[in-house]
């Protein structure tokens, strides 16, 4: 992974809870609060997918949320990066036998960055965001 010398813009994140247990969601908010403070790099949560560069998805995607996830993804402007936080979004995790899962997330929308862990630590989430920045810059460079 190689980062360019300067960030050419702030990275805005939209958070989508697709049936998560809340653990990852709480860690995401903890990541954004003063101890870790990625807002000094312009990384912040936004209220609308139309404003976002990164879609942060947590949870194993329940049947009720699958269509909503597709719609939120479609509302985001390109170039966009999808980041999955937590094990259950990647494989179903402890919920893998459930009858009500439409996921994992990469079966619903294309995923670029995976952050494993149940729940991942804030440091891991920040590392994921850094990976997302690199990917976004590649996308913008047309590579």
């Amino acid at each position, binding site marked *: 992974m190689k980062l360019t010398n300067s960030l050419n813009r702030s990275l805005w994140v939209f958070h*989508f*809870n*697709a*049936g*998560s*247990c*809340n*653990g*990852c*969601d*709480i*860690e995401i*908010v*903890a990541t954004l*609060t*003063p*101890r870790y403070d990625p807002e000094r790099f312009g990384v912040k949560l936004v*209220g*609308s997918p139309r404003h976002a560069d990164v879609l942060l998805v947590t*949870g*194993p995607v*329940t*049947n*009720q*949320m699958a269509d*909503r996830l597709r719609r*939120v993804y479609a509302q985001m402007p390109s170039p966009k990066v999808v980041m999955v936080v937590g094990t*259950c979004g990647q494989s179903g*995790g*402890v*919920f893998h*036998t*459930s*009858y*009500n*899962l439409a996921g994992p997330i990469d079966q619903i929308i294309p995923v670029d960055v995976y952050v494993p862990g*149940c*729940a991942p*630590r804030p440091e891991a989430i920040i590392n994921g965001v850094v990976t997302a920045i690199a990917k976004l810059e590649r996308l913008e460079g047309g590579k």
Partner: protein
Amino acid sequence: MAGNVPYKIPIGPIHPALKEPVHIELTVMGEEVIGADFTPGQTHRGIEWMGLSRNPVQIVHLTDRICGICGVTHSLSFARAVEQIAGITVPERGDYVRTIIAEFERIQSHLLWAGVAAHELGFDSLFYLAWRVREDAMDAIEFITGNRVNYDIIQIGGTRRDITIDQYAKIRTCLKTYKDLFSKLKKLFLEDAVIKSRCIGTGLLSFETAMAYSAVGPTSRASGVTADLRVDYPYCAYGDLDIKPVLPTAYGKDVNGDTYDRIVVRIFEIAQSIEIIETCLDNMPAGPVLWEEKVVKILAACKKASGEAVGRHEAPRGEAVHYVAMDNADAPIAWKVKASTYSNAHVWPIILKGAQLADIPIIVASIDPCMSCTDRVAITDNGSTKIFTKEQLSKMSYEKTRRMLQ
């Protein structure tokens, strides 16, 4: 366009004001809410159904993931139910460790809620402050359990980890930080003009309604209901402690039942939790923390057990209930979870009525909703518990239509 026509405003399931998926539909006349309804179920993962094909030790891990904030609530309630059925006695020290971790959870959960509440009011600097000081509790929890969320410390018959004597000092330092901070928190949350003007008198829940709708936890205590499982039906180490339910009177004010009172109760419960942990640390009995170290033996004891039991715990949001039935098998034959939000969410339509549109986020947040705890569907039919999927339900609905047409 007629200005006074009632409009229906759908909020959610994905909405910036909501931290979790829930669908709320409001009927508004101008700025005033005249009717409200909510549809939970978006985070339904079928946990109870999955539990019926796993053994109790595996289910404990599943219960941890019912909700990431109540990391100990569900595993403790479930473990208590199974222990009653299998006749397992938790060693005294195990009970104390359970109590300490449950109270740390209350501290972090209430601080988390206080931050979210400040955020819903647009007071973001206070939100950041609350979450900054919450990190101290997270550190203590990580220090004790090894995890920040989903602690996985509860085991059937006790806890997986002990709190060793050399850990006491660090825990006491954390508690002292909170003690020093408490007057600041009290001043910022309870004396602030913005919070006072937005919260006093909004989201009123009367004592009678709280009783009629069986509200639990801080939501009910803010309306003057003196119900607290830790006091009423002591379990773990709570029986050894001298605690009283925290009411808004703790701040020297009358019980009003509004959003402000719910803040008062939660802030003062943080102080209560600090005291409980200190007392527990001082009086920790010696001995093991687990009834049986070997998982195989725990499983064997569970497999031999039959019967039914209810495990309860006063979670940060109120009473959580787990009903478990076992019948000489690896997996339980029935498992039902009633989380605190299930009781509290029913007061939403009442407290939202007559509110201004702009007050909705704080009123919705004031009961500290936790949807991932709540979303489960079970229907009892001829004594056997079945869980239906949406497809099955629609199929049943189509079949009924066809029957009626014939």
